[in-house]
């Protein structure tokens, strides 16, 4: 590896990291603003134009606050838990391609933190790791409300992770029929969603070749599962303010709380980004064939990617402002009797359909 290559890799990671931080700051503000609008309020409006800098102000405030440790806390795990929340959150987004590959000199640089060939598997692994943060934070606080939050997190995250993984599997199965062999690499999955569905029937040539069209069921399952996976309303039983004070982060304050908070919003964005990547074609979009100036058309894929992601992020906020929290048994019923059987059935069905299309009838 030469120094240039090393520099490019470092630049990619830093860019991805920076993008994530900036986007998270905007997301926290956007959520507060959108939810305020949906509740006939104004929302943050004091810091900066339209209150955009509210998150910065809040972050600075949290930075200077005391980090309290309860007397009964398990100090090691209690300190570790916030890091365990933030690090997987950042690592998940490293897998997501947020722009078309750029050619620098004679090298093609993919615009993503790391282009692993097991990208999807890595994402699943990291989102499982994030559950440990919640569980350990809840347990190590040595307090009853966080403990209840942590216990709820175990059950909820495990059941919804299954549905999320199964929805991903059907995408992987489908993607395998779209090109040369199967793949778990997100950049490859995005690349296979370029173009349109014109080859199925000429009338479909206006429909972009997104996985959304053949995998609509998986998309709905995935959407519900990621809302539950990120512990967002209406599945926010883990932090349920009205019942559990603050849930797993009740005893956390200052920077440690800020890390949980940051992780939650990073997870919202990266899960939305993954949904956009798997189902909405990632950075694919109209390129206008060089009609635009070079710099604009270079930034265009990133713009498409962010647009698609923000549609899903908006759904997150919209759901939060609309739905009341589910009861625990309703949550489990929806997960185990609704989403998981539906996802399994959909995998079987889509595997049969697309296998049939690809390879012909098994008796031939």
């Amino acid at each position, binding site marked *: 590896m030469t120094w240039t290559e090393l520099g490019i890799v470092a630049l990619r990671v830093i860019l991805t990291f920076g993008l994530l931080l900036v986007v998270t700051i905007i997301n926290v503000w956007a959520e507060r603003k959108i939810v305020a*609008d949906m509740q*006939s309020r104004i929302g943050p409006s004091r810091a900066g134009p339209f209150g955009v800098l509210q998150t910065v102000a809040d972050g600075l405030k949290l930075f200077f606050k005391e980090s309290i440790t309860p007397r009964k806390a398990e100090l090691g795990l209690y300190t570790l838990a916030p890091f365990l929340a933030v690090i997987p959150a950042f690592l998940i987004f490293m897998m997501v391609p947020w722009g078309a590959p750029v050619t620098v000199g004679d090298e093609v640089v993919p615009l993503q933190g790391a282009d692993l060939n097991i990208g999807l598997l890595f994402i699943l692994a990291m989102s499982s790791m994030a559950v440990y943060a919640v569980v350990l934070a809840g347990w190590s606080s040595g307090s009853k409300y966080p403990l209840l939050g942590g216990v709820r997190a175990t059950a909820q995250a495990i059941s919804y992770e299954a549905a999320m993984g199964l929805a991903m599997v059907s995408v992987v199965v489908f993607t395998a029929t779209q090109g040369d062999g199967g793949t778990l690499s997100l950049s490859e999955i995005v690349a296979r969603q370029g173009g349109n569905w014109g080859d199925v029937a000429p009338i479909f040539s206006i429909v972009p070749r997104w996985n959304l069209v053949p995998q609509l069921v998986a998309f709905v399952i995935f959407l519900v599962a990621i809302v539950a996976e990120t512990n967002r309303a209406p599945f926010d039983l883990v932090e349920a303010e009205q019942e559990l004070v603050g849930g797993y982060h009740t005893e956390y304050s200052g920077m440690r709380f800020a890390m949980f908070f940051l992780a939650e919003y990073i997870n919202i964005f990266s899960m939305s980004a993954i949904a956009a990547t798997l189902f909405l074609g990632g950075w694919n979009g109209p390129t206008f064939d060089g009609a635009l100036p070079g710099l604009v058309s270079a930034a265009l894929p990133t713009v498409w990617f962010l647009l698609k992601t923000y549609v899903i992020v908006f759904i997150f906020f*919209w759901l939060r402002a*609309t739905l009341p929290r589910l009861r625990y048994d309703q949550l489990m019923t929806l997960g185990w009797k609704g989403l998981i059987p539906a996802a399994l059935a959909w995998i079987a069905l889509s595997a049969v359909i697309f296998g049939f299309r690809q390879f012909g009838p098994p008796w031939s």
Partner: protein
Amino acid sequence: MGVVSDFLKALKVTARIMVGTMTGSELVTTPYPDEKRVKPQRFHGRHVLNRYPDGMEKCIGCELCAGVCPADCIYVRGKENDPHNPISPGERYGYVYEINMLRCIFCGLCVEACPTEAITMTHLFEFSTTNRADAVYTREELLMDREGRVPHMFPDDPLVDLSELDTADGWVRATAPSGIAAYEGVKMWQGTPGPADWSPEPTQEEIDRRSEDG
């Protein structure tokens, strides 16, 4: 599919409210320090001690307000008036008058109890302090000057709108006794604090003389 249609209906409601708020038709809150709402006429804000038009203090140091106060936040000590140089028309005047705004529940019972309408409530409600001692309003802060202006502890506070001190609640007007029959038709209450624009109440000698006459 009742659940799904209900779900979509709910999403439609929030979307409608969001668009309405953005265009301003559904917005119900105001950006507070920039824009203040007109308060209801009977709003219970901070107290003031009023004067008669001739400059006499209305408070006669009877301590009824302190006695009726459910939060026990008023402390009054009356003192005998100097007969040659009286401060109030009564025998005594409020020598010490303190209201602890941290304890006050703004029920308005002191205003009701006051026999001379000396204490009234205004529409001013911003009096945050940085220490507890500042929250105890003394006679100097409560009593208006001879021009009818009420001093305030934090006149430079950007949030404090001193013009709110000129509006008093109407609670007393609704419940105040009209007084003695001899004063029928005489205006007994005005909606603003400050020196009243009616004739001063008679001294005890005058009242005695009138009742003897009448």
